């Protein structure tokens, strides 16, 4: 296993990875969480992250890539600092989810999976995020925002732009 000194991650994340690698009855079970935590730190899953995680879990890089490509939250390109994920699935759709998505597109001047020029925001249309009874809903990184209106969205975007977002990690 890679020594912490060689890690591309911060000492905290590296320590978390050391722990994860011994948490499960079979090491490989740590793969999906590790990829997610790697992405949280780096903004995306980099080549370096793939290699280090493979080494930590005694896997081939290819095994890691194979799993990485399956999960929709994992990405290999940077997103914006704040990734706006608007749900347009049925419950949200019925209560204005598309209006919210269109509003974000216009407001940010970007489309699905695009990043604003300053790297601050990215936008994604996503499937149901489990907030159907508080629709329409979106997530900014991991934060939930629900009962949305376009006015509320404007205030939320401004909060993040000005550093007042919650940003759960």
């Amino acid at each position, binding site marked *: 296993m890679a020594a912490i000194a060689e890690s591309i991650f911060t000492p905290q994340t590296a320590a978390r990875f050391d722990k994860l690698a011994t*948490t*499960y*009855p*079979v090491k*490989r*079970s*740590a*793969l*999906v*969480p590790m*990829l*997610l935590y790697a992405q949280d730190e780096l903004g995306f899953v980099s080549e370096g992250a793939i290699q280090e995680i493979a080494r930590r*879990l005694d896997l081939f890089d290819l095994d890691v890539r*194979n*799993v990485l490509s*399956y*999960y*929709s*939250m*994992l990405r290999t390109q940077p997103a914006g600092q704040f990734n706006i994920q608007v749900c*347009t*699935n*049925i*419950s949200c*759709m*019925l*209560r*204005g*989810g*598309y*209006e919210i*998505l*269109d509003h974000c597109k216009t407001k940010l001047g970007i*489309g*699905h*999976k695009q990043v604003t020029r300053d790297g601050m925001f990215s936008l994604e*249309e*996503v*499937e*149901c*995020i*489990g*907030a*159907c*009874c*508080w*629709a329409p809903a979106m*997530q900014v990184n*991991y*934060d*939930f925002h*629900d*009962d949305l209106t376009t006015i509320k969205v404007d205030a939320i975007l401004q909060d993040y732009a000005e550093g007042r977002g919650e940003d*759960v*990690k």
Partner: protein
Amino acid sequence: MPTQVSHPDEAVVLKRRFGQGATNIDKYVALDGYKAVQQAIEQGPEWIINTMKASGLRGRGGAGFPTGLKWSFVPKNDKAKYVLVNGDESEPGTCKDHVIFLEDPHAVIEGTMIAGLAIGSKLGFIYLRGEYRYLLKIVEKAVADAYAKGFLGKNIFGKEGVDFDIITQTGAGAYEVGEESALMESLEGKRGVPRIKPPFPAVVGLYGGPTVINNAETIASAPHILLMGGEAYAKLGSERNGGTRLFGISGHVERPGVYELPMGYSLRKAIYEVAGGVKGGKQLKAVVPGGSSCPVLTADEIDVGLDFDQMGKAGTMLGSGGIVVLDETVSMVEFALRVISFYQHESCGWCIPCREGTDWIKKTLARVYAGGGSRKDIDNVQYLADNMMGRTFCPLGDAAAMPTLAFVKKFRKEFEDYIDGHRAGTPVMSEVHELAGAAH
């Protein structure tokens, strides 16, 4: 933060500790928390399973399999056994597990321990979908607190030789991973491709060991059932459908929310009384009764009780308990397209009927939606969906085909009129959208 709702018709069992700060372990204990598991240790596996059987509890994940029976299938051998809690909650229209993790995480932990005691397991996993990071943190904190009190780990509650551990796990975005065998693959660090059955998880599951997989709500119900007694719980519900369940009522209603109603409660009353009726006094058009994979009911089919058997008789399913209400403004062509787009997006691609079927149905409906359809397209959609039914590797194929069939059969006239240029409803997908839009 989700708004909590209530209604006088609610039968409060699972929600008993909601809104009372029960994420705090001391508060949870003060509200009779961790009493049921200690009773379970005293009484032993047979008592637990008999109580669960008597409760009539049926799986809240979708299929409604009797929980006590599921637990009794685990062979009594000395292999390492596991409990796996399914908190992947990804069925569109469903957000009930969300509220449980938020309000009462210890009930999930205690339920996991009870399931473990019932089947002779010493290790449980609580798997949450990746999007639920803030809930994962709540659950992780609750698990850590339970360890600190000696409720988890070795010799729990000071009982010599009684050990139980819980590990939390996170997904990273994939609906298919909610399917139990795909869930095990994901937990083992692999792509969420389902396994062939048999063997069933109760015999060969996680890491090859016998495994009980239950939905988070099913598991959170267990402590309440042991405390109140199986028969008392059963009596709250309807025939062969014990107890209460969390119903998420969303879409075009005045008061959307997660309500706890007795099994068998009237769907009409759930919409018109509990959720306050159709929003803005509009006419009801249709109801998707249990998450997006359940066949739609028309406005005149809602005099039915909300339990697994009555919904089955009505030609649909109770599913995940996510009731989605559609008013008269909804275009069924657009709605059907949005539903199939989801399944096309989430199909893992492993087997051809599902991978190709969802794709071709989506393409065809997208063409109809864009105005270039012909009447033959409706037959084609029906033909494709018919041929997916029962021919796919896992039930996702059926989950896509069943609602599609119901849309085109029950609203055929609306599809025909749409093709002829007479469009009912007000479309909301203003342009071609990435997930739901036209064929690509």
